């Protein structure tokens, strides 16, 4: 969730009253945002000796892009408190009717094919508004725009450039301009090299990958072929916005059409309030015939939809009239009225900033929020009876867990992910390539594979408990996982039981004894191999994991089924002990318990 820092005095002034921290926290809680911090009582000294004013840090839900700045937070809360109404955003063409234009070249199709735009005419900035404008763009770039990959925006002083504009894709060496905050003209290739090297450009360098390997880079040019911006990286110094800028040209380029319009709507909705004629925006004509995207933008018309009164009441458990619902919706910044034609419908206009509303369930939720979640009657879903049932494999695992604990062993719970070496090489086992599930993007070598054996985790637990009194007796009953082509997800879990004994002597017979005990509790009889009876037997095993002559396979024959090896036990080979940094003898046991279901 994004956290937005706002000036406390400014926000409370816009809300028309002072709030104590607790009162404001309550208001946020009811609305569904979260007061993270109030810095009033903190040391607010800056490095340069000045003191920051008291600030509020507010967490905003990830889908409320229209609350990523103080303008949006204050607007939404004022509407919620019935102190203000939703603005009527209007698109107003200039008096002469001559719109700014952007002609889109087909070349952009291969790199960043969509563009949207708007002009904020007669805007008045001051330092706080300017900072908020920049900060909103940053927040949108981070969140909705997915680090500029899907969408990026450039805002320009329209009086420093001259339309009509073109949006093109050009080879990087042909894009020459003085980039924002630079003094020297460079072409895009040189600029990228500069950003790579320059310590102060780290915040930009992380976006270069988005277009770096493309033969052409997107570029917005004015009618004099001056570069306005090189999306999604940087604007030009030429069109830089200052506190004195009165007319802002907004261009938004994207690979995602829907999100481009959302970003445009949010920027306009949040800052058109500062225009001479508040809440108006001047449209821009996009000429883009090759992909049928020619149009005038932005379209600030609220989206009209309907919501069912019966649905809203059924979901919330309320019994509201259509009028009551409309009043609640008004506080959540909708324009709603009972439908003239259908008693069960509300006609709802959703302002453009509420891009989060997709379905009538979103409208239903807003009725519930305005009503107050905590004011809803607490009922109990008691109409239908259901019968509880444990998952059979978990029930089986619990039997083994309890028997082991009753036998005096301690349960451990290591991690399921481990390194490739821990799972294979450390145990003197070979990876045949068809067994272990491998991770594509682990942050550390500790998480390379999903374990195929419980042993690595159990042995690491012993390694970390060297100070524990001897002997150490530990067990785990949990899942390992294997690749398996026959499954939809190409893998399957398998429930295993493992135990390890560590002491001054090998403990081979102790681990063997635990096996016998668990088998007895699972009603598996110890049988002769050739008897043909149901039950288990053990056979000597040659394995590099174990000490020579001190290891056995465990065979199990289930009623009517062919006997098979379900696991093994033995004294660990000294090289395995060394790999796991263990200096005392350890005996282990591991079986697959799925056959006991």
């Amino acid at each position: 969730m994004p956290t937005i820092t706002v000036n406390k005095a400014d926000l409370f002034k816009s809300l028309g009253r002072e709030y104590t921290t607790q009162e404001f926290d309550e208001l946020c809680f009811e609305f569904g945002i979260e007061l993270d911090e109030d810095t009033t009582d903190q040391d607010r000294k800056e490095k340069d000796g000045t003191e920051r004013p008291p600030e509020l840090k507010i967490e905003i839900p990830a889908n409320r892009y229209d609350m990523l700045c103080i303008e949006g937070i204050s607007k939404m809360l004022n509407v919620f408190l019935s102190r203000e109404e939703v603005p009527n955003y209007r698109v107003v063409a200039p008096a002469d009717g001559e719109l700014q234009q952007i002609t889109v070249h087909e070349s952009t199709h291969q790199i960043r094919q969509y563009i949207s735009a708007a002009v904020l005419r007669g805007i008045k900035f001051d330092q706080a508004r300017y900072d908020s404008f920049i900060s909103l763009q940053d927040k949108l770039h981070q969140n909705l725009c997915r680090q500029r990959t899907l969408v990026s925006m450039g805002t320009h002083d329209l009086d420093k450039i001259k339309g009509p504009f073109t949006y093109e894709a050009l080879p990087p060496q042909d894009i020459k301009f003085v980039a924002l905050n630079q003094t020297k003209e460079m072409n895009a290739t040189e600029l990228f090299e500069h950003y790579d090297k320059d310590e102060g450009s780290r915040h930009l360098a992380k976006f270069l990958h988005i277009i770096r390997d493309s033969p052409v880079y997107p570029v917005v040019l004015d009618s004099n072929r001056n570069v306005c911006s090189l999306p999604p990286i940087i604007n030009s110094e030429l069109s830089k916005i200052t506190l004195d800028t009165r007319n802002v040209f907004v261009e938004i380029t994207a690979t995602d059409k829907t999100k481009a319009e959302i970003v445009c709507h949010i920027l306009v909705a949040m800052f058109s309030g500062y225009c001479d004629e508040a809440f108006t925006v001047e449209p821009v004509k996009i000429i883009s015939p090759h992909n049928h995207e020619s149009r005038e933008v932005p379209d600030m018309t609220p989206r009209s939809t309907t919501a069912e009164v019966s649905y809203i009441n059924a979901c919330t458990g309320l019994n509201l009239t259509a009028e009551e619902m409309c009043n609640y919706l008004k506080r959540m910044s909708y324009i709603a009225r009972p439908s003239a034609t259908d008693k069960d419908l509300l006609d709802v206009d959703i302002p453009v900033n509420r891009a989060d509303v997709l379905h009538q369930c979103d409208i239903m939720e807003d009725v519930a929020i305005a009503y107050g979640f905590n004011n809803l009657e607490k009922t109990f879903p008691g109409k239908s009876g259901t019968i509880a049932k444990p998952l059979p494999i978990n029930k089986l695992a619990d039997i083994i867990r309890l028997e082991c604990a009753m036998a005096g062993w301690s349960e451990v719970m290591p991690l399921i992910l481990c390194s490739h070496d821990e799972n294979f090489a450390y145990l003197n086992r070979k990876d045949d390539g068809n067994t272990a599930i491998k991770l594509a993007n682990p942050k550390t070598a500790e998480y390379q594979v999903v374990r195929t054996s419980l042993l690595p985790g159990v042995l690491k637990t012993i390694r970390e408990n060297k100070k524990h009194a001897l002997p150490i007796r530990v067990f785990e009953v949990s899942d390992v996982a294997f690749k398996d082509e026959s499954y939809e997800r190409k893998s399957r879990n398998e429930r295993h039981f493992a135990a390890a004994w560590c002491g001054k002597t090998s403990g081979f017979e102790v681990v063997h004894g635990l096996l016998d005990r668990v088998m007895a509790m699972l009603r598996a009889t110890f049988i002769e191999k050739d008897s043909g009876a149901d039950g288990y037997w053990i056979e000597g095993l040659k394995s590099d994991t174990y000490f020579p002559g001190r290891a056995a396979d465990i065979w199990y024959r289930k009623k009517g089924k062919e006997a098979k090896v379900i696991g093994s036990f033995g004294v660990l080979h000294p090289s395995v002990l060394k790999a796991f940094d263990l200096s005392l003898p350890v005996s282990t046991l591991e079986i697959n318990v799925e056959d006991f279901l």
Partner: protein
Amino acid sequence: MAELQTEVLQKLDASPTATLTSENDFPTLLFTALKAALDSLHSKEMITYETRETDYNVLTAEGQQILETGSHEVKVWEIVHRLGEFRIADLAKQDEFASDPASAKVGQARAFKEGWIKKHPEDKTKIISGVDSINDVTRSLLETISQSGSLSDAATVADLKKRKLIVAQKKVAFTIKKGVKFALEILKEYTDLDADMLASGKWQELTFKPYNLKALGAPAMAGALHPLGKVRHEFRQIFFEMGFTEMPTNQFVESGFWNFDALYVPQQHPARDVQDTFFISDPPKADPPRNENGELLTEYWDNIKQVHETGKFGSLGYRYPWQGDESLKLVLRTHTTATSAAMLYKLAQDPRPARYFSIDRVFRNETVDATHLAEFHQVEGVIADFDLTLGDLIGFMNEFFGKMGVKQLRFKPAYNPYTEPSMEIFSWHEGLGKWVEIGNSGMFRPEMLESMGLPKGMKVHGWGLSLERPTMIKYGVSNIRELLGHKVDLNFIEGNPAVRLDQEA
């Protein structure tokens, strides 16, 4: 030891008052040796004794020096009295202060204070005698203390301590009397009843040593369940009490389809970023979703595509080109809700009221710290029924958490891609004096449910929380690595008490 014990018993027997005191009867004996003998006799109830502690004072080296040669101030007066007027600066150079020149200053200050000396009226660098005779008070006080250990006036004692002329010490003495089992001979005491004594009947004649009830018993040879296993058991019991069936979450690997797309999480959502989710490189990709009979769920797949791409079931959709390949990427499940989705799909084939739960491991590609691990356990509950309301969910949460002893809840509107409304559940934490988030809940979105084929009238509630967090609170663990994983202390596992969520911590 035994000899000293016998000596105590004999002296006590011979004493006309049947009382001994350590200072009279054992004046030279080390106090520790005597105490050991007395303790042993006392444990056999042959004697009783009482410990007396007295405070007294002894002279420091400086105090001893004054006792022998007189106080510093007297020395100063004597020099001035003897020599008439005298330069202050030369005092420390006199023979009297040869062994400790610093004491000249102390003496000079005290002599001034007593009025024994005064400044020369004309020459301030010189001093002259102020009186004709003096009395060495300091010395006589120290003399008294060296004999009796104290003075009647506590303030004077404190002053001498401050002047570092005396220090306090403690003297321990014993008064010894006969006990109920007093005898001159020490009987052998037996510590334990054994089989031989029983067989021979000899136990009747033997004396048994009293048991030390202040010590702990022998450690039990106990096995132990992991605390997370124990808390998981408690949660499972609560779910069973409320009629929930456990879901088959034994499937760590999921396709993007089940983990995200089916839950209406858009393909550009940050949760699907490599920074947050573990993707699988081998095996390379999943098959499209299919049922137990191996039949592809084509209609469901198409519904999901449409509901993301163009909208369906009354939803506007996210309006982006939905990629089947993205859906077939394999991931380590980031939540058990992937299994819930598959269960709800199954339910949609025969819609009826159902309650499901699971408690199992989930994976996040997190940077590890005190509160984050790449793995943790998710507790999840799902209720599907006709005509469920948001009030039902709130009421149910009160009941569910009430069973864990969490009584005071409130609900905050929140955002989650697959639930609407979404509510964060907060409970009042008495210890911290604030509301803390304990879980998430909501009603699954129609886009998700109707894509599966569930009828519009069927609503599904879901909620989740981590198993680790309540366990950490219950057992006072502040670092998650001390609870889950191989770095957990086995002594902690073996020593942690039963959970009993409904009882106060």
